[in-house]
């Protein structure tokens, strides 16, 4: 996650409060190992497949990635399991950032530690600020999300203490940058 990725433009997918890790990646797919490239892609193709059937399809039939780049959600996003597969599946499906009112701790931590996606927090709920598929721009440096058509801008909270970890590309990059572990040979 370098600064070059600080601007994300794409369509938004909208979710509620308490989106749990079983909705994000049902346990039957946890036989897939995220570090194996083919299985990483497969995890992506199953992202959010646990959602009840009344939700809009996150990934269309015969596709392996999503048309959406950003998720806007309510409170406690990613609650439940410590499965890193949840962060990985969303990222593999093409999600670059989640903008939620709040996060369950482990999901947030996994997003930061892996550097797979930006876990941004909105100042108030934005679930009704956008429609499904609205073209938006997230600026992770400035901390904004913008409705491109209307140019309406909403403030996001700064990443705070984890900012340096995110900037370093995750826990390993941060530990190497601060001398906690030696540089990769």
């Amino acid at each position, binding site marked *: 996650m370098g600064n070059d990725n600080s601007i994300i433009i794409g369509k938004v997918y909208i979710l509620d409060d308490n989106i749990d890790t*079983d909705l994000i990646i049902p346990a039957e797919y946890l036989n897939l190992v995220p570090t194996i490239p083919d299985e990483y892609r497969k995890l992506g193709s199953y992202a959010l497949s646990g959602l009840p059937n009344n939700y809009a399809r996150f990934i269309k039939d015969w596709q392996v990635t999503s048309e959406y780049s950003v998720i806007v959600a309510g409170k406690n996003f990613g609650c439940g399991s*410590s499965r*890193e597969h949840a962060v990985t599946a969303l990222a593999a499906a093409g999600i670059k950032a989640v903008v939620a009112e709040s996060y369950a*701790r482990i999901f947030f931590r996994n997003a930061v*530690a892996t550097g797979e996606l930006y876990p941004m927090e909105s100042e108030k709920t934005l679930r009704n600020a956008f429609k499904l598929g609205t073209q938006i721009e997230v600026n992770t440096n400035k901390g904004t999300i913008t409705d491109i058509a209307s140019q309406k801008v909403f403030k996001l909270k700064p990443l705070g203490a984890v900012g340096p970890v995110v900037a370093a590309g995750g826990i*390993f990059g941060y*530990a190497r940058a601060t001398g906690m572990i030696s540089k990769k040979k």
Partner: protein
Amino acid sequence: MSQTITEKILARAAGQNSVKPGENIWVNTDILLTHDICGPGTIEVFKREFGINAKVWDPEKVIIIPDHYIYTKDEKAQRNINSLRKFVKEQGLKYYYDPGTPTYKGVCHVALPQEGHVRPGEVIFGTDSHTCTHGALGAFATGIGNTDAGFVMGTGKLLIKVPPTLRFNLNGKLPAYVTGKDIILRIIGDIGVDGANYCAMEFRGTAIEQLNIEERMTICNMAIEAGGKNGIIEPDDKTLDYIRARTKKSFEVVKSDPNAKISKDFNYDVSSFVPCVAQPHLPSNYAPAKDKGNVKLDSAYIGSCTGGKITDFIMAAKIIKGHKVRINTYLVPATEKVAEGLATEMIDGKSLASIFEEAGCLEIAQPSCAACLGGPIDTFGRTSGKEIVISTTNRNFVGRMGSKDAPIYLASPLTVAASAIEGKITDPRKFM
């Protein structure tokens, strides 16, 4: 400076005299726990970052307990266990409990304390959110992802934020019909599924003192269902007896200082508590069992790290004894030792296993996580249709036990047993 038990453990692990909530610190790890679904990914992160010939920081402190997808024909699940075996051999890990051999244990959060790997005052990281179980023995224990675990594997250290402490003061006489599960479901019902997000949940009071160790584990196990970073209970004589029977390793008992700063106190008189359920689809959807008598059930499930311990089966058997169950009743002992206990523990001269058999429960399954989290299609007890389930497990999210259309009610072993007899949600006092 006065500190809580959580702060004191973390300060020691960070080599500091004291720590404050919100402070980011590097801590030394006493135990890294992993299993078959997160272990293989953790190992690959470790090798990617530290090199293919890297050695783990301490081969006695990385403990691998396969438990999730054990009794399945799923080829990837079997491949994952093989990759653990290869790693254990190559690294010379001392503690690995191999499926299909006499060393196999079962569910990691029951096996870890059972085998003496949990000691007061220590720092335990595990690649599973229910690692918070081990706070029941006075350790700091929390769940982490594969990437963080790969980091711990190579360094023995992790950067963490010190959590503020929410203290739950549970006092009063504990009625026989109120269990650890009823206590934690009531608390989660009150504070919500994010009520303790980022926080330490410290449980104390005369009600906690009355509980045995396994019941305390049930409570700490579900700290994560309120978003807690860790659940923790100060060690007492019961704790020390439990630990000393299982390990000769030395440890240091840590307790909260009298004037430690608490973020928020919650005071309860448990004599007012009642048997309860968490209704679909969140552990916080609390309701007294007696108010839900109109909910007809299709199956009952007793198992998992939170609800498949020997004391859970003893509670269930006391209710079921002499009755017939009306619905499919699945029994999954957490570990091999619990399975042995089903044959050896007696109530009025009858083994638990024979009590369950005579009541018409399904044949007792082999120990593993089984259907608690759905899992591969051939998993024992997995939901597949629209069945309504009552379960001693810890999550009732949509699709958690397999089918998206199968709603789950969480309850104590007493309430699950009573409900299995009646075929509908039933307050266990009817049979007590």
